[in-house]
């Protein structure tokens, strides 16, 4: 799973969002590090939809334009949880290698 796909799925884990809403949510989730362009976003949405990880939720009219909202599917939720576990496991390994595990390290870090 690419970094962009991971962030898009994470954005949708909080509830259905429309295209620009996903861009804003991803920017917020990543602390501004990931700024999705619309072309890039729809490339990701297209792939995730083709893989059955997201689906359209509803359409709402806003200023005369239709906004389509997307939501995670059950498979999408599973794939995201799996990916999150991979990241968490990697983070545990890094913290162990850096000697950041245990209460003392946690206290020092805090």
């Amino acid at each position, binding site marked *: 799973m690419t970094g962009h796909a991971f962030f898009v799925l994470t954005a949708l884990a909080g509830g259905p969002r429309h295209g620009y809403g996903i861009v804003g949510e991803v920017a917020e989730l990543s602390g501004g590090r990931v700024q999705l362009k619309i072309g890039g*976003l729809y490339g990701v949405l*297209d792939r995730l939809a083709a893989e059955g990880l*997201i689906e359209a939720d509803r359409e709402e009219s806003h200023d005369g334009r239709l906004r389509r909202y997307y939501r995670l599917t059950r498979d999408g939720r599973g794939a995201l949880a799996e990916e999150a576990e991979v990241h968490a496991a990697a983070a545990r390994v890094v913290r162990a290698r850096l000697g950041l595990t245990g209460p003392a390290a946690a206290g020092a870090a805090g």
Partner: protein
Amino acid sequence: MSGGLDLEQRYRRVLRLLPGYYREQWEEDMIAAFLDGWVSGDPDDDEWALEFCRPTWGEVASVAGLAARLYLGGAGISRRYFAWGQAIRRAVLAVMLVHAVLGLNVLVRTAWSRRLFGLPAPPASLLTVPPSGVWPTVFDLVNVAWIVIFVTLALGHYRTARVLAVLAIVPGLVALAQAQLTGIMPAPFGPWAWWALFNLAPVLAMTAFHVGAPLPARLPWLLALPAGYLLVIVPIMVAQATGNLAWVPDFPGQCCLLVALACLVHVPRAWSRRGAGSGVWSLTLVLLAAIAGAYRIATLGNYLHEPHLMKVSLAELLILVAAAALVAPDAARAQTPTPAPPPQPQPG
């Protein structure tokens, strides 16, 4: 004045870069997302923005990138674009393979000439003089770098391969420009054709190796490197060592004959229509035939005063065209669009 177009129309014009089937599914949604990015909530500012602002270069680039991924398709894309994407990816790998085999030849000849690894002394005709000066050394390094580029690409490290390939084609361009400007170009078109067809074009076509593209079949491609060396370079070295080099076609001729041979080997599969993906290989071979044929034509000027070699070159071209024609119908079938569009989400 806004030139008659408002912001929405300008975005629609940018979205024309995308394939029609994709626009049908996603255009309205993308337009809404683009325009949402301009809306501030202040009616005056919004009206001004919607009338006078233009899509940013970053937005246009992101749509162009999406268009490239869709036209040079990966999984989930319509059959026609997927076939083109796969054919271009395989053609790029094949051209990189040619570079890598030539690079391997440089390595082996250098090692042999220096009698490394306990190798016996090579025949005088195969002795390689170590490069002297900056350019020969740079070109030897570039030749070896192509091996790394090919392996990196075959292993699926697309970004690394792209960066290395861009760096690898620069010395050739500089040397050609220098030769052209100082009037020491050995032939009018051949060197430029080599650079354009075997350097620039494949590097540009590496766009087809995007995140949605399927990984190449690693093992067959990696095995093709030693196999290409043994089946093509070694016989040429034998001919050179035994004084029969005159029987070996020049490099453009070798390209024509190798692609023609590949077409002939593929003909039974292409005509039987049995193998899945046969059409994609046919399309790949037609692309390679176009590259080899263009290179042969561009280098015909080398033999303007040698009628015999000119006839040989034209014969090579004819053999290539005839062989490519045998697989061309199968290549055309691979591009037949499927009636069903790729899976898209519908409002649930």
